[in-house]
């Protein structure tokens, strides 16, 4: 099997701006005085609080849980006292209940945080239970509960686990730094996933602009017969899981389907590392590496930040905003990240980056009529016709937009990026998707 220079059809070259932080080692962020931990950071059912105002909590203590299968518990990231449980805005744009905890500065670990034993001694079921209890969700942004992903229905035969180390979003380097600094843990995490799902083949896919990460993981996995490292062409959106599966295995996930339909499961590199830590140290997902970057911030950094720390605190630790007003603050990368109304929002499990664009970078360009150059078709990784879907969406003809396969759009933004007329292609297709889905629900 070829494992060098793999890729998919379509996509676009985006300047990756990773030089700002790719060489900067991960630092521990300052201890937050207060954290606001959202009870709903994942896809699925929101958690119910397990603590009440006035309770004292310790690091790693479970503070929220839901009965539903598709959900993930949340844990305290500090030791201290619960001050309030109140609805607050979170960076996904939702307003959800958050547990506000004032830190006592002692950083006491909860007694549940202890090693879970050797991987050889754990059964697949036990591994999945550990992952579930640790509250691990997809850390690449989607926030899908990992234990659900690792429990495919028995009729779906899985033969490949892929660790997603593509990190194709410009600017972000959190996964990159983790792969360079802790490759052994990622290999361990992959082995744990392979055991949990009962799979013999694990592949770590990394874009070629991270040669040090490729080297580190090759070195860390050299004694593992079943684990391979694949180098991927630098092209956006290489890290989209369906594109990644296509590049590595040649298989195509059917339209509307899931990776398991072609026998694959994809796990982000940070998530894989969190799984390793959950087993090795018994550590629930209460902190994560965040890349704070962009021209709008003084000292770009890769920080290990406790969940619930406000964006404001984190940005201040990077020297604050650069001279001049910040134009945009984005959670995630510039292609798919979510721009923020306020910096008083907490870091959540899916916050891989905080990107600050300057006013000039953020300034929207005038939108011109479509000239039908066809570049949006060339770059679309799904091979849609963005110009037509967008034009129907803007005329509120969502039925027509659906006929042009609007729902297959992965919202990667490549079409809007390349458009010479600066048309809001991905933006309007996103609108069409929402309208189509709302209509289906109403039926």
């Amino acid at each position: 099997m070829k494992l060098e220079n793999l890729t998919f059809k379509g996509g676009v070259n985006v300047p990756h701006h990773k030089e700002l932080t790719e060489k900067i080692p991960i630092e521990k962020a300052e201890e937050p005085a207060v954290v606001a931990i959202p009870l709903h950071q994942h896809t699925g059912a929101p958690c119910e609080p397990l603590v009440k105002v006035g309770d004292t909590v310790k690091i790693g203590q479970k503070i929220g849980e839901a009965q539903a299968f598709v959900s993930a518990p949340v844990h305290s990231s500090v030791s201290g006292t619960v001050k309030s449980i109140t609805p607050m805005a979170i960076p996904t744009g939702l307003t959800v209940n958050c547990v506000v905890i004032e830190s006592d500065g002692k950083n006491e670990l909860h007694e549940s945080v202890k090693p879970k034993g050797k991987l050889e001694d754990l059964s697949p079921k036990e591994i999945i239970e550990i992952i579930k209890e640790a509250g691990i969700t997809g850390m690449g942004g989607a926030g899908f509960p990992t234990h659900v992903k690792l429990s495919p229905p028995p009729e779906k035969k899985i033969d490949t686990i892929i660790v997603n180390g593509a990190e194709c979003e410009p600017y972000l380097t959190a996964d990159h730094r983790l792969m360079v600094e802790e490759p052994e843990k990622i290999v361990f995490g992959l082995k744990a996933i392979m055991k949990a799902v009962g799979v013999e083949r694990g592949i770590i896919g990394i874009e070629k602009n991270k040669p040090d990460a490729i080297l580190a993981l090759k070195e860390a996995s050299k004694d593992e017969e079943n684990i391979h490292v694949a180098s991927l062409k630098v092209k956006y959106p290489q890290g989209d899981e369906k594109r990644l599966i296509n590049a590595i295995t040649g298989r195509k996930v059917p339209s509307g389907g899931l990776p398991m339909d072609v026998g694959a499961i994809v796990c982000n590199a940070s998530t894989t590392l969190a799984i390793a830590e959950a087993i090795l140290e018994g550590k629930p997902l209460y902190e994560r590496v965040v890349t704070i970057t962009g021209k709008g911030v003084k000292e770009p950094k890769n920080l290990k930040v406790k969940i619930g720390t406000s964006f404001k605190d984190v940005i201040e630790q990077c020297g604050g905003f650069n001279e001049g007003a910040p134009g945009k603050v984005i959670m995630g990368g510039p292609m798919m990240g979510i721009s923020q109304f306020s910096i008083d929002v907490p870091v959540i499990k899916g916050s891989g980056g905080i990107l600050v664009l300057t006013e000039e970078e953020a300034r929207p360009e005038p939108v011109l009529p479509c000239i039908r150059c066809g570049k949006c078709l060339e770059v679309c990784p799904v091979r849609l016709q963005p110009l037509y879907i967008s034009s129907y969406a803007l005329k509120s003809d969502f039925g027509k937009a659906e006929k042009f396969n609007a729902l297959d759009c992965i919202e990667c933004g490549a079409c809007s990026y390349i458009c010479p007329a600066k048309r809001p292609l991905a933006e309007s297709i996103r609108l069409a998707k929402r309208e189509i889905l709302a209509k289906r629900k109403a039926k």
Partner: protein
Amino acid sequence: MDSKVMDTSKAKDLALENMLLVTSSPHIRSRESVQRIMLDVIIALIPATIGSVYFFGINALKLILISVASAVFFEAIIQKAFKRPVTINDFSAIITGILIAFNLPASAPWWLPIMGSAFAIIVVKQFFGGLGSNFMNPALAARAMLLTSWPTHMATFTGTRPDVVATATPLAIMKYGMSADSTASATVEAATSASSAAGAELPTLWNMFIGNIPGAIGETSVLLLLIGAAYLIIRQVIDWKIPVFYIGTTFIMLVLLGVEAEFLPYHILGGGLILGAFYMATDYASSPVTPKGRIIFAIGAGFLTALIRVKGGYPEGVSYSILLMNVATPLIEKFTRPRVFGEVKK
């Protein structure tokens, strides 16, 4: 709210919130722009423009300047009249102007490009919604209009030497010269070509390649047109597949229609084929956006070009074949929708 009790840091935060721009992703854009694309096309047309002045003299320059100036003028006037934003700074009218002039013989009167520009810009382009919405290539539509309205002016070609007043294009020589049967031609335009073609001799292939032959001022120099085309392909402004499939199909069809081998190079290098295939058939607005559609479009244009040239009443078929394929574009797109990634075969 009492602003006095607000401490300054809070005021700063509130100010920040009002400043942060919030939009749907993506948050960055490429440096591609409509203006840059159009500028690239103009740059690509410069060698052929210089060549046309070199080969056909100062009248060629005059025609090009009048054509460009009138195209830009009509664009601004009609947009003002329609109360639309004036978009002459996107440079697209300049391209239309150059291309209209390129389709004229050097002997054309000064008012001919003005008529052409008015029709191209006002009727074909702006009546249908402006840049990107024109259903036909404006310059080609203008050429067709001029050809039907003033056939003598449009088909009286001068040679590249100033002493020759009227002569025939290589395609006209091949069509009528060999048989010397000028009475058989059905149209005035064809008759004009035919009368001058009778008994004329074909130029050398080298002269055909560099453009030292009678013809419309911008279409004769294959060499200079190809230099510009290479630039457009390298800059990824045009899709190489359209000209390659177009010219390839024309060639194959000419062979199938029984054109003798010695005349084939004249067909490829002569007439408007190179200009049409690289600069007109690749027009974004009037050619399909789908990858397969572009190939079908090019094959269709090649097929029609050969058919018109060999079996039709005109010596030249490039403009009509592209115009016909222009109007077929929506239909072609409908049937060539790309298969979506992972689409289940039905």
